[in-house]
């Protein structure tokens, strides 16, 4: 609802953002699609100038049938699933705890949020060396203190280690959002339930949890988007070794390490499709919120 004049001004002012993002999305996307149907090995002399050989769906088939594909899917699922379960469950508990009256609430909040601000390369390296190092790491010291044999974290329990590191980074995110959601709960609802004779466990189950369901869904969807492309944490800890090669990492290796651009691009298309499936669900929730 506005005048013609303001509408045309609005279109003009929206143009730069729309055009830039459209270019940022379409140009590389079309190039990736194009490469995915081509044989493109820059190290063996293939180049855009000389023209690339059309190979149809060969890259797509080869990417899926390679021996590293299914393990990478499994690794991706374990990392995403593991981190989601840990962060959501602990996030809900932590949010409930932080919502309770206590001394120094603000400070505790800050302590809990802090890991989110640590850059991924730092948290990867700090955990790898100072905590998970089998000889000098804090965890090794702790295990020895209790008389146990220190674990070979990143080589023998590599997946669990990555899940631990990534969960540590994302727990603050889940906690913060769930805490915000809990605080938006109308306390009269809880008082009404208490008057109705609901125990605190029942109040949690029948009132708090349903109230949190939307926030939990949002946490899950947003984290999934980010977790699907976890990169730096693996890059600086195991570099994809010891069964920590995710789909993202596999594509990265195909493209930049073995310089098989066609194959990597086909993998990239798979990753884009996967991310879009998650994205559609997230968009529907966010979109609904726009109407409200």
């Amino acid at each position, binding site marked *: *609802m*506005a005048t*013609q*004049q303001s509408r045309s001004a609005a279109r003009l002012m929206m143009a730069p953002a729309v055009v830039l993002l459209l270019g940022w999305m379409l140009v590389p996307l079309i190039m990736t699609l194009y490469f995915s149907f081509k044989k493109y090995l820059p190290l063996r002399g293939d180049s855009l100038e000389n023209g690339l050989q059309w190979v149809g769906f060969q890259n797509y088939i080869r990417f899926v049938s390679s021996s590293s594909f299914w393990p990478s899917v499994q690794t991706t699922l374990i990392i995403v699933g593991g981190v989601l379960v840990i962060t959501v469950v602990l996030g809900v508990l932590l949010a409930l705890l932080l919502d309770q009256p206590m001394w120094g609430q603000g400070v505790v909040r800050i302590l809990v949020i802090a890991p989110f601000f640590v850059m991924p390369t730092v948290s990867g390296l700090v955990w790898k060396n100072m905590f998970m190092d089998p000889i000098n790491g804090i965890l090794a010291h702790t295990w020895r203190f209790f008389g146990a044999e220190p674990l070979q974290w990143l080589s023998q329990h590599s997946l669990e280690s990555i899940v631990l590191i990534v969960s540590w980074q994302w727990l603050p995110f889940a906690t913060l959002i769930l805490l915000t959601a809990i605080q938006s709960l109308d306390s009269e609802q809880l008082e009404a339930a208490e008057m109705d004779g609901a125990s605190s466990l029942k109040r949690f189950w029948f009132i708090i949890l349903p109230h949190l369901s939307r926030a939990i869904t949002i946490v899950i969807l947003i984290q999934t988007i980010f977790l699907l492309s976890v990169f730096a944490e693996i890059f600086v800890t195991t570099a994809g070794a010891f069964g920590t090669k995710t789909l993202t990492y596999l594509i990265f290796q195909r493209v930049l390490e073995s310089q098989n651009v066609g194959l990597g691009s086909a993998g990239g298309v798979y990753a884009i499709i996967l991310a879009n499936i998650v994205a559609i669900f997230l968009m529907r929730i966010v979109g609904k919120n726009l109407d409200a």
Partner: protein
Amino acid sequence: MGQITLQQVQKSFGDTEVIPPLDLTIEDGEFVVFVGPSGCGKSTLLRLIAGLEDVTAGTILIDGKDATNIPPAKRGLAMVFQSYALYPHMSVRKNIAFPMRMAKLDKAEQDRRIEQAAAALNLTDYLDRRPGQLSGGQRQRVAIGRAIVREPEAFLFDEPLSNLDAALRVGMRLEISELHNRLATTMIYVTHDQVEAMTMADKIVVLQSGIIEQVGSPLELYKTPRNRFVAGFIGSPKMNFVEGDEAVKHDAHAIGIRPEHIDVSPKGGTWSGTVGVAEHLGSDTFFHIHETGLAETLTVRAPGDVQFKHGDTIHLTPRADQIHRFDASGLRIS
């Protein structure tokens, strides 16, 4: 100075026509109130005049000049919004100065007009405060002050009192009326409250679904409503409507009689019924009467000292010269 003419003005949002083609003339210096239930298009009509919305078709003339495509700022109109729309980051003084600053008026003249407006609106002590530190009534005055200093051709008010509590509303109503008497500038005032319309207007425009139902002075509307809608909307408590045999006796599809035009007596009236709820206001008493065989409920306004209780039988006599007759399409039969 401030004559506004709408010629065949029409407005659609997409496919929905909110205002069918409409003609209206507002004379210079008039206080015109647009009144109607919510969603009747009265605010849209005001925004069309203001230039905040484009007309889909038709012409708006301000002082005889075509203003249809002139941007809002150039129309010489000032508007007071429902939410007051004060700039929260500016002091009262800066709020009032803003339109003059935009018009690049010289500083001395700005100060002169600010002092004048502030004195007139009792804002002198608050000029350096922020809107957030003011009460609702004070904010309302700042919004009016911001409008006054522009010395506009006409003032537009969009439900300006709806955010105030009842007591303040009565006070502000008086202040705006006094302002109009003093400035003698055209004012167009939108409200859904028929009491505001009746008390303030020189001319009332009753709207429903974007259509003008009737234009006239408050008393014209009260005495000779053009149709059942206007008859029911103007006046409080609402007019009683009776259909059926009783209406046929008067050669009409329906008759209307205002609560204040029915006399009550313990016996011997034209109609009779049982008292349901009796509301004692002191000056008046409203009786809601059932079992009259005429309508579900009849409302009657009686002097304050008339005593009937719940369940009493009551006799009613409508004043014959105050019965309004309507045909099947709801139009007045004169």
